[in-house]
């Protein structure tokens, strides 16, 4: 088992190195940099600032400098905000997290309940309803539904705020502040939940349908177990098992922000600043975020493998070398 973990860890590290190369050289392709489009600077001043920022070195050297800095926990300097990238990103990561986490919990709850119930009552009106909702969730562009919801609920009905994390020029503290943030969270969380629930529900529905066809389910019924026990204990346990891997894949999304949703709702998170730094050419920020995303994705995939090996008794013990 430990050998398996170590092997996977090694692969993970290699992958991360590969990604760092990919990311860096992608950015190296950019013809301009932060200074080049600034018309107020003279060419000499530009050259000076570039040298200061280390932008005049050959690309390979720049890569290793950047890599070295990252490994020491220095992620560069935001030229737009005039602060370390870590300082800029830290609060934003938290903002993105609260929305993403709320959506994550709701999505999984809704998906498991709907998926399981729909599979148990296949072809019923409930199942048909779930299926319609499912396809809507998969097919609607995120920005469109977001805008539509803002128009209906925020502008026309005026029930909810149109965007941002707080009311404009708000100075509330404590519980009032929390409530205010929650009010602002309603629409973005609702949209994200709606968008995510579709594929997950389908996953559980299909998974349950497949498990319910298995021989051991027939045995469970033949033993005289209550149907509730057959479905929610015997079947669900088997259907949830592969879903553990999905849990791990949620990891990047939890911290890295939904780009489009944050843009539309003007939510101060990692997603929104990603777009912003594309426009302002604040590459240090952009590169750091991209590396963060890649690191989380790779970590998530690694965790998925480990979790699955731990949870599925078949995998766990095969690895330990006992009889297959």
């Amino acid at each position: 088992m430990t050998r398996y973990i170590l092997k996977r860890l090694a692969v993970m590290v290699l992958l991360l190195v590969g990604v760092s190369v990919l990311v860096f050289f992608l950015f190296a392709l950019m013809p301009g940099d932060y200074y080049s489009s600034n018309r107020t600077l003279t060419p000499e001043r530009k050259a000076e600032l570039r040298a200061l920022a280390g932008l005049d070195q050959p690309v390979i050297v720049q890569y290793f400098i950047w890599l070295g800095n990252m490994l020491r926990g220095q992620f560069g300097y935001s030229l737009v905000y005039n602060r370390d990238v870590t300082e800029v990103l830290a609060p934003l990561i938290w903002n993105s997290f609260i929305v993403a986490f709320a959506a994550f919990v709701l999505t999984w709850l809704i998906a498991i309940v709907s998926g399981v119930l729909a599979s148990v009552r296949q072809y019923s009106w409930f199942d048909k309803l779930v299926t319609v909702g499912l396809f809507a969730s998969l097919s609607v562009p995120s920005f469109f539904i977001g805008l539509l919801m803002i128009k209906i609920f925020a502008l026309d009905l005026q029930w909810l705020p149109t965007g941002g994390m707080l009311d404009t020029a708000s100075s509330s503290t404590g519980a009032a502040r929390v409530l205010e943030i929650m009010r602002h969270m309603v629409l973005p969380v609702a949209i994200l939940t709606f968008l995510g629930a579709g594929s997950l529900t389908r996953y559980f529905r299909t998974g349950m349908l497949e498990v319910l066809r298995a021989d051991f389910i027939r045995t469970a019924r033949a033993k005289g177990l209550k149907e509730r026990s057959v479905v929610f204990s015997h079947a669900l346990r088997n259907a949830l098992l592969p879903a553990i891997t999905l849990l791990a894949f949620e990891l990047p999304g939890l911290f890295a922000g939904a780009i489009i949703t944050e843009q539309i709702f003007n939510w101060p998170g990692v997603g929104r600043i990603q777009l912003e730094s594309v426009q302002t050419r604040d590459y240090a920020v952009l590169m750091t975020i991209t590396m963060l995303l890649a690191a989380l994705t790779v970590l998530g995939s690694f965790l998925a493998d480990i979790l699955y090996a731990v949870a599925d008794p078949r995998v766990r013990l095969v690895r330990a070398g006992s009889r297959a």
Partner: protein
Amino acid sequence: MSGGGELIVSQAVDPEIGPGQPHPDAGARSGRSGRRRSLWGESFARLIRMPAASISLAALVFMLLFSFVGPFLTGYTGDELNLPIANHIPTMDHPLGTDEYGRDVLTRLMLAGRISLTIGIASMLLSLLLGAVLGIIAGYYGGIVDSIIMRVADLLMSIPGLPLLIVMAAVLSELKVDPSSRIYIVMLLLSAIGWPSLARLIRGQVLSLREAPYMKAAEVLGLSAASRQFRHLLPNVMPLLIVVATLSTASGILSESALSFLGLGVVPPNASWGNMISAANNLIDFQQHWWLWVPPGVALLITIAAINVFGDRLRDVFDPRMRK
């Protein structure tokens, strides 16, 4: 023996993801009044009988006609400036109103459809080609070839789709590509992002089919590797390919629309459904001129939903286990 597209496959091999299972009523099928239909013909016949499949197919055909034939029927070219009636709400003359330059929105919607659909289909074909070829090669040959291809695929999959697209698109914007060429670049970008997951899926299928008895038989008969791959393996991978192709078109259209909405994909003066929705970024247009941004969203929703539903039915038809 069999030419063309006739797919005659051993009953024991399930041309779908998963181990082969003999069909429960296999005997019933060939007992038809002497006439033997090929697997394809039969699948298609069953597909058309499903209401969801027929309706979604009809919707797709409608959207295709709408986009490619429609502009000839509206009486406008979509470029005619008519400032006096700019931003006019829908009338009989202009069923979807006019935009800020007085251009007919309906015609522009159709023209935008041409671009969005073309990009979606073209990028799907490209990523399918790349993914299928690489996936089959990787699965069939295994060893170091497999490792290299899969490592590259893993690398590309380590960064989530949208952020990677954004970064790549930003690089392009920097390189000051002209708007018309951008369309092709977007196609290429989407394919570059799309092929890894396709390759993985197809490789998986190839791996499970490679050991099938009929493949061993082909080898024993002395058929060349190319012959085995293309005349025996490929027809059994086809169902999976078809389903995957359908669904990745949907994702291609969705991705293009997101990119264009953010201003990083198709840019004015070219219209795509995505960038038409970015009209909503302007507060007045958003609040008062709904005909500018709601119709493209609806068009996207209908198209993508139709593709998803049709693809889902396709999958059911090809998977004997789901047959009722």
